[in-house]
């Protein structure tokens, strides 16, 4: 099977207000891959996801998704092309109950998971449909944040630190979910601080430093590069 890039980012620069965060980031994600962005705090991993999604004040360079140039599009148009974003702070709406949160993102194309399939992945959600969104536990909120973007038919999922602050058993459940989504053909770009978690789910890892991608390590070569990785991550 020829490996085609679903997402290719080249010479990406991005700004928040006056601060210039990304300085020519370059990488690609192939169809059906799970790829992580690794790096220390503040190197621009979250900004990279937000720049792809059109959520930064200003961006330049090239972001091609399935042949379409995203760099000048507003974020609602990008979402409609089939890109979905799960923010680090999860973005659960307090004024919406769990059902409303789950049904909030509109279906942008066919092929998304049905509600039954989402409940199959995250049975907890089914029992809490009438609860206020922010009354859920941290783990349940993360499941809700991931579950709601699976319904939309988006093919590229941008997940920002889905395991942050969660109990090990929940982290495992998120890990199994990501593997299962990969098996179903989703393409996933993951920002992750939890390096061990990343090594269990990802095909490849990009390492970022000061707004640039400085290295790429296939997951199979991770073991032999542990020292280098530890140096990159400062652990």
């Amino acid at each position, binding site marked *: 099977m020829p490996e085609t890039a679903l997402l290719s980012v080249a010479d990406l620069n991005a700004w928040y207000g006056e601060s210039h965060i990304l300085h020519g980031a370059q990488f690609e994600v192939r169809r059906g891959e799970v790829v992580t962005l690794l790096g220390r705090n503040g190197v621009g991993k979250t900004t990279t996801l937000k720049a792809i*999604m*059109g*959520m930064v004040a200003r961006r330049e360079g090239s972001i091609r998704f399935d042949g379409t140039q995203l760099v000048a599009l*507003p*974020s*609602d148009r*990008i*979402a*409609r092309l089939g890109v*979905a*974003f799960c*923010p680090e702070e999860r*973005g659960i*709406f*307090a*004024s*919406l109950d769990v059902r*409303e949160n789950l*049904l*909030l*993102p*509109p279906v*942008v194309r066919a092929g998304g998971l049905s509600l039954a399939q989402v409940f199959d992945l995250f049975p907890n959600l089914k029992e809490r449909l009438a609860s206020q969104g922010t009354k859920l536990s941290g783990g349940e909120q993360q499941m809700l944040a991931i579950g709601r*973007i699976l319904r*939309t038919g988006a093919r590229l999922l941008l997940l920002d630190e889905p395991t942050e602050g969660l109990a090990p058993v929940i982290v495992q459940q998120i890990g199994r979910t990501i593997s299962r989504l990969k098996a179903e053909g989703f393409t996933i770009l993951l920002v992750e601080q939890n390096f061990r978690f990343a090594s269990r789910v990802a095909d490849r890892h990009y390492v970022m430093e000061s707004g640039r991608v400085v290295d790429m390590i296939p997951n199979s070569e991770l073991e032999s590069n542990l020292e280098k990785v530890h140096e990159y991550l400062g652990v």
Partner: protein
Amino acid sequence: MEIFGIPTQALFGQLLIGLINGSFYALLSLGLAVIFGLLNIINFTHGAQYMMGAFCAYFLLTKLGIGYWWALAVTPLAVGIIGMVIERLMLARLYKLDHLYGLLLTFGLALIIQGLFRNEYGTSGIPYALPQELAGGHNLGFMFLPNYRAWVILASIVVCLATWFMIEKTRLGAYLRAATENPQLVQAFGINVPRMITLTYGFGVALAAFAGVMAAPIYQVNPLMGADLIIVVFAVVVIGGMGSIMGSIVTGFALGLIEGLTKVFYPEASNTVIFIIMAIVLMIKPAGLFGTQR
């Protein structure tokens, strides 16, 4: 018949006036709450837009021969569209700035609009006839209830509750509530948030215009009718809590009633009672009775 030494006719008469005023307070503060929730703008033009609603009904009648009932449908649409143009051309440029700029712009617009109408039509007020279907009234025994007033109260309650239902219970309302919390994320889910903001402003303005049409037969059509009312409505909004939908409805009706009762028992305070309540509420619960601090 007397209650607390007050003739029932007088008591219920004032309560009715209170409910009528409350109907307008509720409709207007509801529009303000909807606009403030999503746009974060305190729409000082609201009173002028209410007045434009009354004038639109008057123009429809005198220039096109279109009567009350059609005016009730057409006016909110027409004034709402004018509102959307204002939002696109002016308000949309202010969202990244402090609240104050939106307040100043809409206040300035209100002065300009009111000034233009005042130049043309003076301040004496133009009568607008009751719709024939609602002329007359019913003697309820303890009081006389004019049909048109009953209609205003009923229509206001229905419109307020329908708006509440739409915002709190429907999918469209869920978009609106979510965008009030985090517009950037809602847009990243594929919703055209700028368009939603424009439509929301148009809807809030349409509510004001609807109130204006209903007010025309009661208060006459007057360039300053909104300026007089909007100050009280802002006090209502402060008491209810900015941005709370049910809060603005309940507070609107309740304060109308309280004002009416004050007219019966202590007429000297009837013009200030709402502001006294506002001061007390601000001291005890600065975010308003139904509001949440943000």
